[in-house]
C-alpha cells in the first residue's frame, strides 16, 4: 500500500476511534468553538469602542482572523502525533516507528486526526464567511484561489512549527512549551495585520517565521487594499510560498533530529 493510501487508512481508523465517544466529542467541539469565539468577541468589543485600528476596519480584521483560525485548526487537527512527540521520546515508543519500513513523518502525521478541533475551525469559517460577505470588492476567482492558497500555506507553516517543536524533543523534552509562543501566540498576532506591530517584531515574523507571508500579504491582495508598509502586487501573490518553504525546511531539520537520536541512543 503506497504512502497516500496508508495515510487515508490511518485517518479512517483515527476518526472511527474518536467517534466512539460521540457525546464527549460534540461537547468538546462545541466548547472549543465557544471558547475560541470569545476571542473574536473581544475584538468586536474593541472595535465598537475604538471604531478602527490604525485605518483597518472590523470586516478586514475578520478576514485575518478567519483565515488564520481556519489554517491553524486544520494544522492542529493533523499534527497531534508531532505535538505529543515529547511523550513518545520519553517512553521510548519512537523506536517502534523506526522499526517499520515507512517514513517516520508519515507515521506521526497519520497517528491521529483530532476531530474535536473542528470547533475552532467552525467559528473560523463563520467569521471568514462574514468577512467575505462584507467585502467592498468581492472575491474574484483569482483572489479566491489566492485566499485558499494562503490558508493552505498557513497549514504548512503551522505544521512546520509543530515538527520543529517535536524535533527539539530529541534534545530537550522539558522545554517544548517554548514553541507555544509561536503556535498559539502566532495565531493571536496573525489575527491582526502585521502593520500594527513594531518593526523588529514584523521583521521576525516575515523572514524567520513567515506568518506575515501566509496572512498579511496575500490578504492585502484579496482585499485589494493599499499596504501601509508599501509592498507591491506580485510580492503579495508569491508570499504564501514562504509557508511551504518553511515546512520543507522543518522536514529537513526533522531528519537531522532523527539522525541525532539514532547516534546517541535514547
Amino acid at each position: 500500500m503506497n504512502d497516500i493510501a496508508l495515510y487515508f487508512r490511518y485517518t479512517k481508523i483515527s476518526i472511527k476511534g474518536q467517534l466512539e465517544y460521540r457525546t464527549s466529542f460534540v461537547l468538546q467541539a462545541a466548547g472549543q468553538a465557544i471558547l475560541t469565539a470569545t476571542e473574536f468577541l473581544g475584538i468586536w468589543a474593541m472595535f465598537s469602542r475604538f471604531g478602527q485600528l490604525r485605518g483597518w476596519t472590523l470586516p478586514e480584521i475578520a478576514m485575518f482572523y478567519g483565515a488564520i483560525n481556519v489554517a491553524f485548526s486544520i494544522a492542529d487537527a493533523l499534527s497531534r502525533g508531532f505535538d505529543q512527540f515529547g511523550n513518545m521520546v520519553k517512553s521510548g515508543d519512537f523506536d517502534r516507528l523506526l522499526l517499520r519500513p515507512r517514513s517516520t513523518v508519515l507515521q506521526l502525521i497519520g497517528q491521529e486526526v483530532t476531530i474535536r478541533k473542528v470547533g475552532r475551525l467552525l467559528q473560523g469559517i463563520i467569521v471568514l464567511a462574514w468577512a467575505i460577505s462584507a467585502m467592498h470588492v468581492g472575491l474574484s476567482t483569482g483572489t479566491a484561489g489566492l485566499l485558499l492558497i494562503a490558508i493552505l500555506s498557513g497549514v504548512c507553516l503551522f505544521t512546520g512549527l509543530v515538527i520543529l517543536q517535536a524535533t527539539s524533543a530529541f534534545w530537550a523534552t522539558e522545554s517544548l512549551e517554548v514553541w507555544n509562543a509561536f503556535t498559539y501566540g502566532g495565531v493571536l498576532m496573525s489575527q491582526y495585520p502585521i502593520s500594527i506591530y513594531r518593526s523588529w517584531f514584523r521583521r521576525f515574523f516575515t523572514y524567520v517565521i513567515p506568518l506575515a507571508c501566509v496572512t498579511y500579504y496575500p490578504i492585502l491582495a484579496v482585499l485589494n487594499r493599499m499596504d501601509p508598509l508599501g509592498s507591491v502586487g506580485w510580492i503579495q501573490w508569491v508570499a504564501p510560498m514562504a509557508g511551504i518553504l518553511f515546512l520543507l525546511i522543518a522536514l529537513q531539520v526533522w531528519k537531522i533530529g532523527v539522525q541525532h537520536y539514532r547516534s546517541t541512543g535514547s
Partner: protein
Amino acid sequence: MPPQIIVEDLVKTYRIAQRDTGLLGSVRGLVRRQYRELGALDGVSFNIDAGELVGYIGPNGAGKSTTVKTLSGILVPDSGRCEVRGRVPWRQRVEHVAEIGVVFGQRTQLWWDLPVIESFELLRDIYRVPQERYKAASDELIALLDLGPLLDVPVRQLSLGQRMRCDLAAALIHQPPVLFLDEPTIGLDATSKLAVRDFVRGLCRDRGVTVILTTHDMDDIEALCDRVIVIASGKVLCDGSLDALRARVSRQRWLTVDLASVDIEVSDPDATVVRREGQRVCLGFDPQAVSPAELIARVTAKHAVSDLFVENPPIETIVARLYEAESGVATATT
C-alpha cells in the same frame, strides 16, 4: 554461504548529561553541561548463520539491548562493522526493517484501542504484504498461537499472555527471515511461557527463521537455544553451546531444600552450602561427582525436609563465575 548476520568489533559509548541537584547546580547546568560516559559495547563480534536459534544473555547493563538496537538499525554504533543479509542495518533502514521482526516483551506494537485483527491488517498495509500472502501467513499464525477467540478483542483488554502471543504473530505478518525477541516471556504464566517456547522452536526448526533471543530466563535458554552468547560489560565472554558454557565455568547444580525447622546444620561430603535463608538452604554439587537423586536421598535421610527442588545456578552466577574464570586465566598467564 556467508553468515546471515555479521557483527565485528562493535563499539558504542553513550554520553549522558549530568543532572546537578540543588538550585546552584541547576544554574550551573544551564551554562555548562557536564557529560559522563557510559560504555555499552566494547568490541562485540559474532556471526550467525541462517536458521540458528541463538540465546543472547548477560546481566543488566551488559549491552544486550544496545546490540539488538544496532542490529535492528535503530542505533548507529561508534565503530565496527555489522551486516544483516548483506545490508548495513542503520544505513538502509527501510529495506532492512522490512525483513526483520522485533518483539519487545515489555511493550506492545499493537494499537491499543483496536481489535487484534485490525492491528494485523494495518501491519499488512504498512509492510506492503500482498493479500494472498497475508491471508496464508495470518491464518497459520492464528492457528499456531490459538488467537481465534482474541481477534475481535481490543488489545487493551488482553491479558499479558494473550498480548504476547498476539505480538509474536504481529511481528511475523510480513514473514521476516530474522526475528529478534527481547524478554518475550517476562511476566508470563507457565502455560503462556510454554506456548511461546513451542512456537519459537517450531519457527526455527520448520521455517528456518533465524531467532535471536535476549532473556534473563534460563529456562527459556535451556528449552530453546543450542547456541548461547554471553555478554557482560560490553564484551562477549562466551559463544557456544549451553553445555559448553556450563562445562567451561562449572558443572555445578543447586539442590534447594526447605527444612522443617531453622537450626538444622546441613552438610554433605559432596556438596557445599551456597546460600542459606532461614529454612531454605541451597547446596551446590557436581552432578558428575554425585547424582541429584543420590544427593537428595542422602540429605532427606539425615534431615527433615518439607520441600526441595533441583535447579541450575542463575545466569548471574554463571556469568560471575565466567568473570572469575576469565580473570583467573588472565592472572595465570601474566
